[in-house]
Each structure stands twice: as structure tokens, then as C-alpha cells.
């Protein structure tokens, strides 16, 4: 028998600090596989956020620089402009990209900055203990919406992918999920497409990934993975939101 699956080289052999069933772990692995397959290790700089993923840099064997909360798109802009040959991607949570970082994200897309944003949407602020996120669903209970998110008071879940798709500088935006084998495979294709879009110099690319947070959703990993299909993906539909790269879809 030959080995057909093992840890990607760009993923250091370290036990993730993430919770059992957390989407971060799956996405980290997918990104590491792509860094290997697309030969990006020598030229990549990743920009992780504050949040559960602050320790991203403990897992990837690539250059990484931590950004202030929400500022990833601005930091990536400065880095990419200073060194256009460097492959720059941000890795951001829903608070980072869609609350405090909204302006930086929108304007980086608007300028068509040739960077890729990996947007981990788990509908909650994980690291700080489960507060409401911009993407929290109506009626969803969090520690700052203890009786459930009330649209009248707290507003609607924010659809960053749809909003950014309106911007011409955004070359490729897709929403995927990491809650089933099929969706995990699609997530890898989407990130590959987004990465390739940067390599081709097409402009801003983003992959929004619906990601399970069993701990703060107060579910088991299996329940959390199911909840994405049954509830979350109904509010945040999966699929290619916009593709201005002019290339055929990888499917």
C-alpha cells in the first residue's frame, strides 16, 4: 500500500489549540496543501488576526505578520504595494473583516489591491467568549444577545461577500463552508481560484468560509457541522458570488 494522504509540508507538526471540530483547523490544512501545491512557501506572507486564529503563525511554515484587529487589508495593501512579487493573504474572522475592519476591507477591494482575504465566518466572536458578530443570525443566542439577536435592535447579519461583489476591484469572491467532505473539497477549489487570481494579478479576491464554532454555538462538533447546512447556509448561500477573472470555473 502506498500513502495517499499525509500532513502537508507547510503545516508544522503541532497540535492545534483550536477546539474539537473547529473550522480553523480544516482551513489551515487546506491552505497549507495549496501553499505546497502552488509552490508559494518562498514568496508567501500570511497576515493573521487577533482572535482564536492569532496563533496561526504557530502552524504555517511561511512568513507571517500579525496585524492589529481589523487592519489586515490595510497591512496587506502596504506590504503588497511595497513588494508586488510577494504573495500576500490575510486570514480574518468575522469581527475582524466585517466589523472593525469593514472600511479597510471595502477600500482594499475598491482599489483592486492584488491580495487575497480568507474570511472565516463562524457567526460569533470566538476568542473573547462568544459575543455577537456582524454575521450572527437573527434569533441566535450569544453572550451579548442572551435572548437571541433582535433584528430591530441589533440589525441584520452582514453579507460581506455580496457587498464586496458590487465593487469592480473585486476579481473573485466565493462563499463556501467546511462542514462536509463535499464542501471541504469545494473550499479548497475556491481558495485555489482566489490564490491563482492574485498570481494572475487580477485584483482583490476573497473566500468567505462558513466555519463551525461548536464551543460558542454550544453544540457538539457533529451538531455544529450540521447546523451550517440546516441553518447558516440558508442565510449565507454558498456559491461563487462574483468572478471577474475571465477564467473558466475550476469545476
Amino acid at each position, binding site marked *: *500500500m*502506498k*500513502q*495517499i*494522504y*499525509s*500532513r502537508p509540508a507547510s*503545516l508544522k507538526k503541532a*497540535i*492545534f489549540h*483550536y*477546539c*474539537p*471540530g*473547529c*473550522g*480553523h*483547523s*480544516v482551513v489551515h*490544512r487546506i491552505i497549507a496543501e495549496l501553499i505546497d501545491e502552488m509552490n508559494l512557501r518562498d514568496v508567501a506572507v500570511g497576515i493573521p488576526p487577533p482572535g482564536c486564529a492569532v496563533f496561526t503563525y504557530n502552524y504555517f511554515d511561511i512568513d507571517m505578520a500579525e496585524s492589529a484587529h481589523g487592519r489586515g487589508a490595510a497591512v496587506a495593501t502596504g506590504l503588497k504595494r511595497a513588494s508586488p512579487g510577494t504573495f500576500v493573504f490575510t486570514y480574518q474572522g468575522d469581527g475582524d473583516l466585517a466589523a472593525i475592519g469593514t472600511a479597510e476591507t471595502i477600500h482594499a477591494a475598491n482599489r483592486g489591491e492584488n491580495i487575497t482575504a480568507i474570511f472565516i465566518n463562524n457567526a460569533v466572536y470566538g476568542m473573547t467568549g462568544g459575543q455577537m458578530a456582524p454575521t450572527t443570525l437573527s434569533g441566535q443566542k450569544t453572550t451579548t444577545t442572551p435572548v437571541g439577536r433582535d433584528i430591530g435592535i441589533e440589525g441584520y447579519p452582514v453579507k460581506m461577500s455580496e457587498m464586496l461583489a458590487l465593487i469592480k476591484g473585486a476579481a473573485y469572491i466565493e462563499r463556501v463552508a467546511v462542514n*462536509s*467532505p463535499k464542501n*471541504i*473539497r469545494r473550499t479548497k477549489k475556491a481558495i485555489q481560484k482566489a490564490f491563482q487570481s492574485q498570481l494572475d494579478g487580477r485584483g482583490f479576491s476573497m473566500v468567505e468560509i462558513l466555519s463551525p464554532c*461548536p464551543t460558542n454555538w454550544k453544540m*457538539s*462538533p*457533529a451538531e455544529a*457541522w450540521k447546523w451550517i447546512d440546516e441553518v447558516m447556509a440558508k442565510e449565507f448561500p454558498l456559491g461563487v458570488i462574483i468572478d471577474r477573472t475571465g477564467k473558466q470555473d475550476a469545476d
Partner: protein
Amino acid sequence: MKGHIEIDQEFCKGCELCVLFCPNGVIGLSDKLNANGYRVAACVKDEECSGCAVCALVCPEVAIEVYRD
């Protein structure tokens, strides 16, 4: 097609997703605790393993290596 998996039990967090998604019921949650206090997944029906690698695909901890003929 015949396959085989190896689970690194120190990396396993007992999330049971491999158990859930394996099409052949090859994996089960054992009573064994690893150093981090998690009940770990273990291969319970190696003979049924086809090497489809779905377990490795879903395993968040990259704890599973897959072999195939």
C-alpha cells in the same frame, strides 16, 4: 480497493467527525484517553477500509494518514 488508516491519537480531539463521515463504519470512538484528556478515535474495522480518505479530509487535526493499494 483496499485501504488502511493510521490515527495519531495524541492529535485526536474526539470530535467524532471521522466516525460520522466514514462511509464504511471503519472508525469508532474508543474509551482510551490521550494526554490531553480526549477520548480518541480508533480504527475498529480495518478490513472495511477502502482508502477513500474522507476521514482525513474531514479530520480537523490532520491526525489521520491514509494508505491505499
